[in-house]
């Protein structure tokens, strides 16, 4: 009897874990917040380090904001930026990753400071 319970428990556990895994992969949702605010209004206080990383970067200096990589938060949201977005404005800097162990802009460029190799 005990063994069956253990087996059922195991299967259930597996199910819950994989559900979490699937949910994690499929849902990138920004917490529901006061959407009358802009990103900077919250994040300058909520995530000051990341905000400062961005603020002092080449993007921050010209106020090219969070939304470029992360979406507007409400209608579109990406936890991480993607090469596709970089390529939109930086079409002149598209490189080949063919003969390189690096496969993405972000392998070398920090997403917020934009610095090369996190220098």
């Amino acid at each position, binding site marked *: 009897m005990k063994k069956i319970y253990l087996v059922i428990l195991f299967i259930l556990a597996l199910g819950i874990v994989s559900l979490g895994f699937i949910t994690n992969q499929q849902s990138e949702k920004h917490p529901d917040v006061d959407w009358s605010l802009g990103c900077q209004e919250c994040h300058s206080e909520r995530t000051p380090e990341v905000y400062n990383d961005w603020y002092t970067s080449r993007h921050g200096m010209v106020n090219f904001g969070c939304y470029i990589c992360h*979406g507007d938060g*409400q209608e579109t949201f990406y936890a991480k930026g993607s090469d596709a977005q970089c390529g939109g404005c930086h079409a002149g800097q598209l490189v080949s990753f063919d003969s390189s162990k690096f496969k993405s802009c972000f392998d070398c460029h920090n997403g917020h400071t934009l610095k090369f190799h996190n220098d």
Partner: protein
Amino acid sequence: MSLSRRDFLRASALTAAATTLGVGTVFNSKMFAATGIDKDQFMQDSQGVMWHKSVCRLCGVGCGVMLGVKDGKPFGIRGDKDNTVNAGLLCVKGFYLNKMITAKNRLMYPMIRKNGKLTRATWDEALDFVAKKFTEIKEKYGPDALAFYGSGQAETEETYVANKLFKGHIGTNNVEGNPRLCMASAVGGYISTFGADEPVGTYDDIEKCDMFLLVGSNTAEAHPVVYDRIVARKKQNPNVKVVIIDPRKTPTNKIADLHLQVIPGYDLAIMNAMAKLIIDNGYADEQFIKDSVNFSDGTNPITYEDYKKFLEKFTPEYAAKQCGVKAEDIVKAAKLFGETPRVMTMWCMGVNQRVAGVFLNNLIHNLHLLTGKIGKDGCDSFSLTGQPNACGGVREGGGLSHLLPGHRVVANEKHRKEIAEIWNVPAENIKPAPGKHTVAMFEALGTGDIKGIFILCTSPAQSLPNLNKYLKGMEDAFMVVAESFHPTETSQIADVVLPAAFWGEKEGVYGCTERRSQHMAKALQPAGESRWDAFILVDIAKRMGYGKNFEHFTTAEAIWNEYLKTTKGTDMDLTGATYARLKKVRGLRWPVPSEDHPGTGHRFTEGDPYFPKDKAAGKRMYFYTKSDGKAVIFARPDKGPEEQTSPEYPIALTTGRILEQWHTMSMTGQVPELVRAAPRPYVEINPEDAKALGISTRDKVRMVTKRGSLIVEAKVIDRPRKGTIFVPWHWPESLTNILTIDAVDPGSKEPEYKVAACRLEKA
């Protein structure tokens, strides 16, 4: 395995070649497949994506943009790396162009106001109605009871057709465009100083320049890609200097070496003071002045000595007192200007949107003429144009009430004859007297002098100054609005609204700041029932009985080819800019008189195809658009703003733009990401002023001028000068222009959006 760069470039080249054959050419998707497309979403989705060469829909920089289309729908945007203007770089607004195409507020069908409500109609119903009403008005009240109000965002072909219809056939010169509200003073400055419109140099001068003087321009936010080139130039050579004259600290200040933070409206004194210092300290290029410069007081010619006498009052101390800056900073600015070998001055709305706009433009040109820093590498008085096609369509296409295509004027009999011949109408059709300029035009809607108006690609019910004065006139008149988005402040009060095809859905040419005309591909079918603006106008022309001279306009190229005839032999010759050529290259800078001519860098000097070597007789420059080849230095008084501050209205109100939004938000306001950047209207208040009034950020404040009052959120920030506030004008829910003044420059008729007197209080 990623798509290799070489393969991607090859594919891009293939696409570029493909697009010259027109929309619908089969794209060789095998190219991508062969390289083993990887997991990267961008590259992966690129299978079957056709990238079309175009130009950004937004500001006057003229960045090259590739519009990606897949399965007949907009797929994405990327910068055109082969375009010399931006080399593949885009700003945040251009980045979202594809989202604007598919915005939820795209207008999909025509509408007619019936029983007070806009209701859906068919094209035939709408256009028959427009043609009938316009014809009725014309027959009962005369052609001048009709008007056309167009845009610096309309394609050149669209403005050309409108001009031909209204000036050449209906017979009214009431043809205006919103560049009257932004660039007219620059036009006035160029024409009075040089005899012809638009800059002498190009963007090429940026990379050779050693000093940038930025006057009334927040380049970082309003012309970001030009700003990026200045930043790159300064990074390449840290000795490059940037001097700013502006009432406000802006993001542009990040690279400033010197900022003269002036009281708004009083900066003419600084220009004259700089001229005086330049001459007194021996920085004037006496030979250049002798060869290429005349002097004038605005009415009569004067001598160089007269001019020096005129400048005597403009000591640095006098100018400093006028505009509230330090005299030593004016001296510094003049010294830098005089000593630095290669200088570019750039300016925008802070200079143009003033009752002394033309004067200030002249004074800027004066500095470059005094020092000879013009018409050579790295040197120019280079006006930044706001809209993407103010130059191409309106200034060059003649879409203002006193102009005709090809830099001609209605007042000139020879010009009327030349255009009438190309338009195939009797010369008498074109009236010699200029029509009503924009403010007068909308005033006339109110008085009933104008009873019918066609508005194309612009929203005067948000953009006119002293807005409340003009709204009733627009409501009372028979107003037809051709627009891609609905509702806008203007479309929602129209009698007829016609859905216009948007960027990417129509072929045509845009001419940007540096005289570069560039072709935009038609990459998509117009959304819903929308139609190309030019074809809408052609259809109306036909229904009004003028079809004979419009029926050959069956393609964009046919219209462009007729337009080219108007430019042949003029200082803005575009004969060599055929569609075949424009589709291949990244634009051409006029004059480009033949198909094998590469286009022109510096005008009025060696390299300009019209530079008359014989007449120049050894002089470096010959301004052949002036009868004696000499440009004019004008002794202009330091005229102040129309509305000075007073005890009742003690704060100077200035208005402007932010990076993320374009004009009335009909396009950029549909992009959630751009809205997120600045979700609510606000006013920038200097911390000292805020403290005195007990105002904190996010408090509601009331701004009151003689014309209206508005409540917005405060943003306390060290940007506007003490005693000045700055209000962006983008939000339809917070119409800034009910506060602004509609006083205009007497020469250019451009309103003074940049200075008004205001009272600020906690709401």
